[in-house]
């Protein structure tokens, strides 16, 4: 530790600490623009000049290393004169457009000009003007305001992992720009807006829509990826105007992914459902709540009497709150049915009889920043969990090794030590190789449950390198991504990964796909386990009549229901096999949808019978349990739109109408207390292990051409699908059929040709595109998109025909 003095107060900082670190510790504010605690030191704004005893001139606090016995003055005559001098220079070219600048009121330059600026300028020459740049649909530019702090440039290089902005030119001609007209496409780009200390980079969707001081700031939690990023939602006149990060070092640090930041546009979408609707004779008609609720209750009662309670099923979204999910399952179980599930994109449910707890990250999110080695299976991590990918990127920079088993090889913007890009059908076999290599290296037996799988594979060099990476670098972790969880052999992958983690002494995590993936399990929104008679405890796949992915599973027969209650779902986009899902729903007698949106698919489709408008996360209080098991409760930030009601109230009233016991809640707090009183310690229920499941043959499943159907980042849930600006980014580009060159040659297809894709009865027409990094005989076709909603399962055989 180095001891020194700032403004007469003693302070000590670690070796390599700076004067700025010491000042932050003491709570002494030194004015600055380019310094940011998460970015490298540039020392180019010069605003933080301070006086140091015996130094011949003022020194920048952010870049001056603390030295033993140093005496620093931050407010002495010399320091203040220097700071005022710098401010005068910064203001020379800065326009006086604060009254129309979106940064006004929250601008560091404006604030510091109050303290350090002169009341009039001595500069009488012409000011410079810099042309604005088009950086894409999210960031708006006013480059004349730029003070060249380069925070945005450093953010790209250091945090986002891709340098998209740079400072071109020199001296008076220096300006921030992207390489000749390119846009900024990083999925973390919105953070540049926060980092910009002036109004040069501002939010394009928010532009000119409010003054910052008119906004009330309310705390919330992100409903998208499993991280549970903390939000500040800014509201004006009962409308969400903007979303900013709420700093939480243990979760999102000071960052936010673009999905969390800009998806609020979906909350104000034209497609929001404002009144309940009932379909009469094929026509949708608006009605009042009483009518809609009676219709629903009577309909469910009728189906129960006619077909039995077990023909009723509930499907819900892991983006819903803990309270909503709990009440929905309580409602369905109260009716006498155990058919409830939130895992609509999952296809392999063999694990259900063997689970020992709730699947979770296996560690705290903050601990990811301490890993020395990680194996990610089935995830393009920067699109699925942008901020988790950011943490891994930082540790890789410090020497950690990232290993990847995945069917697609998108640029992760980080160094990948070992990668195995294999067809979906070979992922389990690849993992078995790594397991075998690890067992050989550690000289232990492969556990019984995986012996059959490992006996048939021969270990490749890549597998050996991955095993060595996990064994030699500690702490290590194995993560199963979204794609692995949707995979038809999920259980095999899970068990193999579990054994690999045991042998290599690595931590083992399942990345929560949605904000409340863990919470949905805690709420009980899963079918009963181990029931001898499977009817009445159907999984999502069984309820929707999908044939089980693995034929060797007992009792996995498809059993479509007669009545469905759907909550916060768009089945044609949110399920594993949208074609089959729509078919099963259309064949049912009654489909009740609790939804925030009236989509084209529902309005023109034939499956839904009644729509009950429910509140999205900003209009209700609720709880999400994040992938690390953190329970986060939030309040509504605006009043429900139109006649929308919080879903927990809707289900409560339905429970009352059907005279079910235990639906007398007054507040969501009571619901939460009931859930968490049964098991106050959520962490004790988290466990990824399966007991007594033996992996069978992991050989290549299925012949022909295999589909790789990942979920695009901005198609994952109903809110983000309606966020207009995000839908204009390059990540939201219309899906194409990606194939390796060899397959295109075999099929006689050129890049750009239209092809017809067929899965079972479903088909779609898309342009073909070439990606030689894909495994052979695979075609990558995004799911969860209206253009591919007619197709079948996210994986499995697909037919490609030239048009």
């Amino acid at each position, binding site marked *: 530790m180095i001891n020194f003095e700032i403004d007469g107060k003693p302070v000590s900082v670690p070796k390599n600490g700076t004067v700025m670190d010491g000042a932050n510790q003491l709570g002494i504010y030194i004015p600055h623009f380019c310094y940011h605690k998460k970015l490298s030191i540039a020392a180019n704004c010069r605003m933080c000049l301070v006086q140091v005893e015996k130094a011949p001139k003022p020194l920048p606090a952010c870049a001056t290393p603390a030295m033993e016995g140093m005496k620093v003055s931050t407010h002495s005559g010399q320091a203040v004169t220097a700071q005022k001098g710098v401010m005068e220079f910064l203001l020379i070219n800065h326009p006086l457009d604060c009254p129309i600048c979106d940064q006004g009121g929250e601008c560091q330059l404006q604030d510091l000009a109050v303290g350090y600026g002169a009341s009039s300028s001595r500069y009488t020459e012409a000011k410079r003007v810099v042309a604005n740049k088009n950086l894409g649909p999210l960031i708006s530019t006013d480059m004349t305001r730029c003070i060249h702090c380069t925070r945005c440039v450093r953010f790209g290089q250091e945090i986002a992992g*891709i*340098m*998209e*902005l*740079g*400072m*071109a*030119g*020199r001296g008076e001609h220096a300006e921030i*720009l*992207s*390489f*000749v007209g*390119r846009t900024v496409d990083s999925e973390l780009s919105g953070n540049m807006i926060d980092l910009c200390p002036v109004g040069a980079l501002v939010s394009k969707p928010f532009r000119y829509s409010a003054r910052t001081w008119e906004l009330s700031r309310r705390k919330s939690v992100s409903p998208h990826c499993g991280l549970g990023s903390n939000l500040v939602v800014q509201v004006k006149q009962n409308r969400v105007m903007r979303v900013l990060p709420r700093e939480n070092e243990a979760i999102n640090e000071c960052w936010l992914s673009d999905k969390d930041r800009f998806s609020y546009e979906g909350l104000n979408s034209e497609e929001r459902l404002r009144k309940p609707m009932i379909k009469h004779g094929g026509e949708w008609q608006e009605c009042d709540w009483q009518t809609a609720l009676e219709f629903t209750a009577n309909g469910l009662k009728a189906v129960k009497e006619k077909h039995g309670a077990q023909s009723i099923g509930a499907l819900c979204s892991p983006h819903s709150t803990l309270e909503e999910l709990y009440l929905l399952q309580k409602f369905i179980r109260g009716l006498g049915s155990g058919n409830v599930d939130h895992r609509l994109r999952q296809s392999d449910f063999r694990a259900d009889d063997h689970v020992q707890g709730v699947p979770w990250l296996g560690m705290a999110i903050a601990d990811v920043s301490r890993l020395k080695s990680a194996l990610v299976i089935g995830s393009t991590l920067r699109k699925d969990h942008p901020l988790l990918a950011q943490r891994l990127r930082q540790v890789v920079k410090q020497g950690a090794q990232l290993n990847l088993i995945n069917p697609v090889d998108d640029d992760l913007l980080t160094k990948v030590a070992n990668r195995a890009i294999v067809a979906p059908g070979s992922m389990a076999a690849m993992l078995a190789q790594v397991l075998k290599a690890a067992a050989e290296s550690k000289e232990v037996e492969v556990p019984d449950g995986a012996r059959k799988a490992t006996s048939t594979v021969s270990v490749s060099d890549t597998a050996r390198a991955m095993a060595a990476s996990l064994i030699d670098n500690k702490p290590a972790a194995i993560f199963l991504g979204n794609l692995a969880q949707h995979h038809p052999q999920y259980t095999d992958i899970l068990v193999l990964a579990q054994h690999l983690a045991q042998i290599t002494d690595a931590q083992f995590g399942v990345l929560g796909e949605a904000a409340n993936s863990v919470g949905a399990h805690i709420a009980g929104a899963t079918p009963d386990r181990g029931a001898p008679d499977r009817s009445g405890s159907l999984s999502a796949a069984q309820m929707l009549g999908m044939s089980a992915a693995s034929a060797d599973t007992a009792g996995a027969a498809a059993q479509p229901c007669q009545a469905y209650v759907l909550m916060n779902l768009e089945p044609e986009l949110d399920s594993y096999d949208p074609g089959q899902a729509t078919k099963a729903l259309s064949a049912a007698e009654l489909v009740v949808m609790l939804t925030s949106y009236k989509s084209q698919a529902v309005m023109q489709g034939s499956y839904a019978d009644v729509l009950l408008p429910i509140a999205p996360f900003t209009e209700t209080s609720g709880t999400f349990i994040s992938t690390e098991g953190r329970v986060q409760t939030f309040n509504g930030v605006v009043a429900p739109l139109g006649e929308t009601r919080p879903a927990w109230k809707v289900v409560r009233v339905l429970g009352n109408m059907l005279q079910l016991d235990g639906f007398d809640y007054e507040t969501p707090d009571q619901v939460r207390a009931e859930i968490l009183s049964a098991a106050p310690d959520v962490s004790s229920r988290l466990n990824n292990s399966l007991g007594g499941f033996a992996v069978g043959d992991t050989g290549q499943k299925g012949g022909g051409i295999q589909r790789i159907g990942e979920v695009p980042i901005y198609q994952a849930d109903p809110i983000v699908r309606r966020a207009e600006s995000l839908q204009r980014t390059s990540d939201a580009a219309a899906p194409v059929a990606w194939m390796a060159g060899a397959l295109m040659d075999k099929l006689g297809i050129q890049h750009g040709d239209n092809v017809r894709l067929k899965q079972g009865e479903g088909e779609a027409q898309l342009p073909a595109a070439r990606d030689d990094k894909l495994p052979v005989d695979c075609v990558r076709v995004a799911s969860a998109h209206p253009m591919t909603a007619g197709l079948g399962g996210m994986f499995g055989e697909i037919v490609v025909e030239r048009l």
Partner: protein
Amino acid sequence: MLSAESIKKIDREITKYPADQRQSAVMSALAIAQDEKGWLATETMDFVAGYLGMPPIAVYEVATFYGMYNLQPLGKFKITVCTNLPCALSGANEAVAHFRKKLGIDFNETTADGKFTLKEGECMGACGDAPVLLVNNKRMCSFMSNDSIDQLLEELSK
């Protein structure tokens, strides 16, 4: 994109730096590319970025920072006259005036026949020889009196 010969030259520059720091060779690589192409088009910079494994914008930063890189096509001979203080005191302004008169162009302009481009330069580190100028970044000419300028232009015009 670049000729095999240029690539060979760039490879030689790369060997001067540690293997994981190829981008250290960006300045020489741009100079070599410019020697071959005459100027640095966006595609040329893109190619250099790809070859050195660095972001295109980082290459652009370097190319726009230094005066010796041409981001537009220029005349056959680029004449860069230093106008910093020591040169100015020793007659650089007169030299510039003479160029203007002789060639009929101002700074950053090219003669109609595409032969000469006049550029204003910064200190070239040879103040004792002032006024100095550079021809195509490579050839330094000292003590540029009007006579010497006439001689130089005559020689280059041949």
